[in-house]
């Protein structure tokens, strides 16, 4: 069964109607009888010892049902995906302004917040650690007793020093990237409830319900089987809901009060307490020969992970992996440090370490091409990895490689072909136009050393439709629609005959995370595996009823047919009726484990990847030389997602990614001074609106991946990555100014222009 009627079609998103009409209830919309409101007391200091916590006044208040502190955490008082270094409720010290010190449940939201104000905490402030480089010094105050360097990795291949000696061009720069906020529309929110048997249910938008279940169980000291986590739908996540947010607080309050408890973080609380993209300082030295062959890359990355580890270590690992981009680089010396500070919290964010290093690398590449007088695109083509090449980390590129294909498509696209024409028509004499491009590869899945798996279920419902269960949550990326299309083609029916169950630890099998550009690939492969079993089950029943041999059975148009006599058919609803009458449930399970690269990198779990998505993006900008303000006018985005299961979905990802990467390039930065967040709301943290979105053309290049479902890979992250250096390279093309620090705010561009003018 390999017919593709629905795969590749522009099927409307299955959740579109309910979302645009407001019918769909997100977790922050849920309400239950007798429900309480929960609230969190956050730290008053970015770094301080806790001397005393007095909750007596809060507990005595009317309408307050429970006040909890660290002594009320029955299990491990810590959480964290890799190491549980973040206290559920702080007991001895606080390490950032978002640290939780106490929880309150009250009959109204107002009463809960009044109770927070009545809790008295005595602190002894400590020196604030706010510079990652200084934090690495032995003399620095310690955020954690074990030291401020959370992780350090180093990868070396070839003879880097010899390559630099022999090179015709060597470019060396230091790059600085900002602390981007996920800015999801729905802040961290949810409801926790407990039933008469002590089973807890948590409704909370997140990215891996089964891992949440284990983290909650660990903190509660409870059997995970007694905890159900429902993660779909999430009102946006982008990595910011990969780690635990409010799930454990909800569970603790529900357990203590015996009543449903709801919690919705305000935007300010989310901005202070929530996850961010790691700010990085990147020293990069890159060499090329006179004929434009890249020879070597030396990279040193220092990443500010804030107060706790979360996924900081893996983020830095991926930054190291992606720091050589799509290029053949035989000589590399790559090093990354993940460092604790009191600057908020950093962790997973769409791109996962690639955004920072690709900004640096793609700027370096443009600089080298300019020094050599080579065409920027041709320089990239010359050095791009091909299928069968040995990659900079030493593994062989045996999966589909779309680097050249996206660059070739770029060379033919209207924006590139007519770039001089576009540049010549600026709207005022003092406004300069430029065109920039950038490219990258992006690892899909978790990589070597981290088993990446997924499972799916398919059940024939009594009405003849199929229920398809995949736990990877729908976080807005559209994976459930892709699951419908792949299931419809795998079962020979229409998308209307598929019902998806998503993101529920009780109703689905564990399919892993909705992260790492992995859910369509993993879920799709697991669905295909389950569909194979379902077809076998259907064939047994249908062959018996139709009096035909099983090998004659085919699946088409919502029915089982006899190949040699298609008039003999049994619609799925009839099969469902027969099964129901026999008291049978027709259910199948499927699973899938990712293939991995032929070589790992010692001591670096997750490195390298085997399967990558590819993308080239081109931007046309107009820079106001009087103010430094940059406007992105037009973008062409050329992703290679493997087979595009839903081209409309890919376009949606591409457009959203371009806008997110534009914000990262031009305006977005969570400014933290001495541990205090100075940009806690959208009045000061500036994200692009629809008015700022450029005209975006998406050209999909399909380099199909043989191991992928129908040839698909993943594309959720890559779409927001090269657009950032494409914009800053376009600013250079327009003005001659190189930017090594983003965001390229008006002030920053203006000062650079002024400096260049002398």
């Amino acid at each position, binding site marked *: 069964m390999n017919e593709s009627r629905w795969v590749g079609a522009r099927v409307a998103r299955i959740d579109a109607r309910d979302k645009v009409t407001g019918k769909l209830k997100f977790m922050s919309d849920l309400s239950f009888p007798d429900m309480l409101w929960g609230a969190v007391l956050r730290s008053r200091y970015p770094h301080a010892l806790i001397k005393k916590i007095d909750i007596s006044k809060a507990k005595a208040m009317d309408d307050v049902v429970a006040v909890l502190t660290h002594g009320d955490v029955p*299990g491990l008082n810590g959480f964290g*995906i*890799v190491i*549980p270094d973040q206290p559920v409720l702080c007991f001895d010290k606080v390490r950032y302004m978002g640290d939780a010190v106490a929880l309150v449940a009250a009959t109204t939201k107002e009463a809960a917040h009044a109770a927070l104000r009545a809790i008295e905490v005595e602190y002894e402030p400590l020196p604030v650690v706010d510079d990652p480089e200084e934090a690495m010094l032995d003399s620095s105050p310690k955020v954690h007793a074990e030291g401020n360097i959370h992780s350090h990795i180093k990868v070396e291949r070839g003879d880097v020093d010899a390559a630099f000696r022999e090179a015709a061009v060597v470019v060396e720069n230091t790059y600085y990237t900002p602390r981007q906020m996920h800015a999801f529309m729905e802040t961290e929110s949810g409801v926790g409830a407990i039933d008469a048997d002590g089973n807890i249910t948590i409704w909370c938008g997140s990215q*891996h319900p*089964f*891992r949440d279940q*284990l*983290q909650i*169980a*660990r903190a509660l*000291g409870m059997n*995970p*089987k007694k905890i159900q986590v429902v993660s779909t739908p999430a009102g946006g996540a982008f*990595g910011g809901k*990969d780690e635990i947010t409010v799930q454990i607080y909800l569970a603790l309050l529900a357990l203590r009060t015996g009543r449903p408890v709801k919690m919705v973080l305000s935007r300010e609380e989310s901005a202070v307490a929530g996850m961010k993209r790691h700010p990085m300082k990147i020293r990069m030295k890159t060499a090329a020969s006179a004929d434009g062959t890249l020879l070597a890359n030396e990279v040193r990355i220092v990443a500010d992970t804030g107060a706790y580890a979360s*996924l900081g270590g*893996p*983020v830095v690992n*991926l930054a190291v992996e992606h720091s050589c981009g799509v290029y053949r680089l035989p000589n590399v010396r790559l090093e990354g440090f993940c460092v604790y500070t009191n600057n908020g919290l950093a962790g*997973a*964010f*769409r*791109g*996962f*370490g*690639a955004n920072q290093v690709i900004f640096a690398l793609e700027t370096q590449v443009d600089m080298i091409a300019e020094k050599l007088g080579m065409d920027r695109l041709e320089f990239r083509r010359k050095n791009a990895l091909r299928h069968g090449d040995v990659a900079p980390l030493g593994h062989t590129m045996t999966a589909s490689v779309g680097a050249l294909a996206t660059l070739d498509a770029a060379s033919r696209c209207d924006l590139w072909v007519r770039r001089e024409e576009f540049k010549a028509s600026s709207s005022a004499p003092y406004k300069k136009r430029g065109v920039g491009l950038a490219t990258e590869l992006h*690892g899909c*899945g*978790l*990589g070597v*050393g*981290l*088993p990446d*798996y997924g*499972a799916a279920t398919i059940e024939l419902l009594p009405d003849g439709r199929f229920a398809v269960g995949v736990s990877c949550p729908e976080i807005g990326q559209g994976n459930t629609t892709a699951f419908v299309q792949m299931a419809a083609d795998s079962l020979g029916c229409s998308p209307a005959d598929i019902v998806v169950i998503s993101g529920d630890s009780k109703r689905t*099998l*564990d399919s892993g*995370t909705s*992260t*790492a*550009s992995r859910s369509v690939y993993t879920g799709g492969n697991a669905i295909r595996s389950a569909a194979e079993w379902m077809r076998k089950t259907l064939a047994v029943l249908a062959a018996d009823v139709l009096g035909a041999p099983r090998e004659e059975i085919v699946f088409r148009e919502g029915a089982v047919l006899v190949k040699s006599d298609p008039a003999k058919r049994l619609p799925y609803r009839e099969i469902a009726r027969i099964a129901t009458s026999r008291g049978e449930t027709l259910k199948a*399970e499927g*699973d*899938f*484990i990712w293939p991995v690269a032929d070589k790992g990198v010692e001591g670096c*779990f*997750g490195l390298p990847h085997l399967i990558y998505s590819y993308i080239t993006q081109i931007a046309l900008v107009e820079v106001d030389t009087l103010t430094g303000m940059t406007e992105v006018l037009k973008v062409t985005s050329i992703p290679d997602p493997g087979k595009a299961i839903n081209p409309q979905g890919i376009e949606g990802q591409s457009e959203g990614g371009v806008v997110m990467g534009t914000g990262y390039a031009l305006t977005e930065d969570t400014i933290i001074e001495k541990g205090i967040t100075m940009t806690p709301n959208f009045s000061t943290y500036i994200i692009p609106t629809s008015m700022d979105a450029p005209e975006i053309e998406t050209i999909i290049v399909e380099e199909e991946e043989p191991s992928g479902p129908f040839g698909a890979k993943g594309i959720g*992250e890559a779409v927001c990555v090269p657009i950032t250096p494409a914009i800053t390279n376009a600013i250079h093309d327009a003005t001659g100014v190189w930017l090594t620090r983003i965001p390229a705010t008006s002030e920053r561009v203006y000062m650079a222009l002024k400096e260049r003018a002398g």
Partner: protein
Amino acid sequence: MKVNVVLFGTMRKYASEDKFQMEFDEGAKLGDLLDRLKIEDRIYLIVLVNGRRADEDTPLSEGANVHILTPVGGG
């Protein structure tokens, strides 16, 4: 019966090799395997038996592939 065991990440500390075989009597369950490896902290633990999440009561079978890891993530 023999089962194939693979330890990932921090779970590697429970054996001298990452990949090895273990032998059990018929009727053995996953809990017996975890006992023999002396893995005591089992709350924050993922075990796959033949690609599916499994718990201590999951029966082992001849040639079963057992993957043991703590939950992880990535981008």
